[in-house]
């Protein structure tokens, strides 16, 4: 069934260091051949992708589809389709839904919704502790068996260092990576934006850089103590990126990601109380942004994620203190990554690695590679297409993007998940 040829495209596959113009053959949901058709292959569908780039489907390490719990903001169906339209084929979801992903029944619910959605794959993270309360361990082995790729704090810092240590050790027993979002709960209390001159002018409580670095310090000490593979999500500071780099030099098993918007926005974008740019962790100073770009370029930050947090319009329509943090990010993930290439931050191959092979490696996923025999999760984009990013061109239910009105170069034209065409850009 379902033999597809992607004909005439430029294949860029960071996992295999491949950059070549060739046909790509898909059969039975898997990559069947590159350049040469496998014997006996009869194409049922030929997609002419001449002039376009064919790469592994993107793997987004942090996206919140809001289901279960907040389906007025978005649903798994809406966001799985929006992800597909953005070239993303795997959405990894933090466990802080309602209910929390701390039992296999919640995982099963998510998987059921995923099957109905017919878009990107949904990969839930399990909660490290019951209810993310930071007290009792979850049944991690069962969660893994149900399909959780890693165990995460879901943005709720485990305050008790002993509980965190135990959670890490327990997860490590089952070779489950641990995902932490470093944020000192006391230093960040009540904070709305980066503690800097903009917060001072606007009279808003700041979140100091030390909220990230202090938490990272403790967490890295526990990585050193336990040796458990740990991934730090959504870094926001230059100092935090430095801590990660130093830990890697010492040989600690740590990786990190950054939200794409952190590489483009700074505290200055919050000027005039622009709630669209209010995110957590906050966008910080110009020098933080520069250092994060540097760390992405040299690979110390291995992955770029969307940190997708869709909201209904009302959630952002109010003064800063009453509006909800977070930005809708699925639609802008690939465009922003391509913009990094345009701006000379890193070459295309490396940039695509940050959203394909590297996140796959961090979670130990099979996807993220176009090698023959691998699962056919594929993104095709037109690298020259210039388009306006706005609420109408966005696919996510949440239109709360800081990038409305931006012009992007590079647009997804086709997305395949398990060898099935799940998205095709309609002709305009």
């Amino acid at each position, binding site marked *: 069934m379902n033999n597809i040829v992607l004909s005439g495209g430029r294949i860029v596959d960071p996992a295999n260091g491949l950059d070549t113009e060739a046909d790509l053959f898909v059969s039975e949901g898997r990559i069947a051949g590159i350049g040469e058709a496998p014997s006996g292959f009869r194409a049922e569908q030929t997609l002419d992708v001449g002039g376009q780039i064919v790469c592994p489907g993107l793997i987004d390490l942090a996206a919140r589809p809001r289901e279960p719990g907040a389906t007025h903001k978005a649903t798994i169906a809406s966001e799985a389709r929006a992800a597909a339209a953005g070239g993303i084929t795997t959405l990894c979801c933090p466990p802080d839904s309602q209910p929390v992903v701390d039992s296999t029944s919640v995982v099963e619910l998510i998987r059921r919704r995923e099957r109905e959605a017919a878009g990107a794959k949904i990969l839930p993270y399990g909660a490290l502790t019951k209810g993310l309360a930071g007290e009792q361990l979850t049944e991690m082995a069962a969660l893994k068996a149900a399909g959780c790729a890693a165990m995460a704090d879901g943005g709720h810092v485990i305050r008790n260092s002993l509980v965190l240590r135990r959670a890490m050790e327990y997860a490590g027993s089952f070779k489950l990576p641990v995902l932490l979002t470093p944020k000192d709960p006391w230093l960040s209390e009540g904070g709305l934006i980066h503690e800097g001159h903009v917060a001072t002018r*606007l*009279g*808003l409580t700041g979140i100091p850089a030390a909220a990230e670095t202090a938490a990272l310090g403790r967490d890295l000490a526990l990585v050193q103590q336990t040796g458990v593979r740990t991934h730090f999500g959504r870094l926001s500071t230059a100092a935090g990126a430095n801590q990660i780099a130093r830990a890697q030099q010492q040989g600690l098993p740590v990786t990190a990601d950054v939200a794409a918007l952190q590489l483009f926005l700074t505290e200055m974008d919050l000027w005039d109380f622009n709630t669209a740019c209010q995110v957590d962790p906050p966008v910080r100073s110009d020098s933080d942004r520069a250092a994060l770009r540097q760390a992405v370029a040299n690979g110390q930050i291995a992955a770029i994620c969307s940190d997708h947090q869709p909201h209904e319009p009302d959630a952002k329509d109010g*003064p800063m*203190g009453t509006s909800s943090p977070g930005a809708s990010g699925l639609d802008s993930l690939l465009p922003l990554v391509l913009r990094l290439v345009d701006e000379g931050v890193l070459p295309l191959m490396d940039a695509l690695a940050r959203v394909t092979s590297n996140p796959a490696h961090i979670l130990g996923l099979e996807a993220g590679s176009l090698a023959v025999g691998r699962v056919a999760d594929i993104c095709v984009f037109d690298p020259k297409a210039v388009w306006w990013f706005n609420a109408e061109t966005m696919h996510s239910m949440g239109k709360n993007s800081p990038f409305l009105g931006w012009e992007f170069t590079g647009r997804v034209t086709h997305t395949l998940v398990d060898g099935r065409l799940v998205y095709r850009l309609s002709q305009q």
Partner: protein
Amino acid sequence: MSLQLDEHGRLRHFLTTEGLPRPLLTQILDTAESFTGVIGKSIKKVPLLRGRTVMNLFFEASTRTRTTFELAAKRLSADVLNINISTSATVKGESLLDMLRNLEAMQCDMFVVRHADSGAAHFIARNAAPGVSVINAGDGRHAHPTQAMLDMFTIRRHKREFEPLRVAIVGDILHSRVARSQIHALNGLGAGEVRVIAPRTLLPHDIESLGVKVFHDIRAGLADVDVVIMLRLQKERMSGALLPSESEFFRLYGLTEEKLSVAKPDAIVMHPGPINRGVEIESAVADGPRSVILEQVTNGIAVRMAVMSMALGTGGENA
């Protein structure tokens, strides 16, 4: 922040003193000066806002500020509605935006807004119908521009020029919208030097970027100043590890005759009120010959008349 100016550079809303051009700041003071004559008369009214409706939207309790806004509006012959919202709709879960739409349906011309969230006045101005002016009567820790302008008015009456002045603002800068607005207004009017005096726990990060010199020692900070502005210290600041005790704060930063002796002999002492006697200022200073604290309250009416009439496009006729 161009939100508050129209295309001709005239005041449309009054949200912050930051970024306002000096001629506009001076115009506010001059217009206020012209209204002081009105206040002195036995018939204390001018017909500038006759037929206009001003709505006082106070989401935070305030007696003094609300009263002076009300008096100012009445002396301009406007109709005034006071809406105390902490006891009204938001409690019922109505959003700020919905409430705004409802109030606009009552055909008012101006909202005077006080709100506990920084940026609330900006939010309302951005969402208000065209032709409706918003005056910020204090938003969170962000701004309290009419208070700052009445302070500037009081300073100018005593000192005439801003350029030669050294002004010290003492106390809880961190939580103070008044201090932020004063700093922007003083710098906008060309004050020679603006100082802030406080322990680091009561100073926001990188306050120097607002154009001030920082002092932690009040005696060094008050040396040779022309104007001392004391800020109110809320009792709740004793919790949260900002300060050890009221008595230590008073000992280090409370204004006394003795500490004031290093200032210029003709220095004036100001306070936006209400005063905590014995916490940030001793009674001998608050009630003493250099205190202009009660003048500030009186001047508040003329300054608010000036801002309201300018924002509704009628201030020029009187100025």
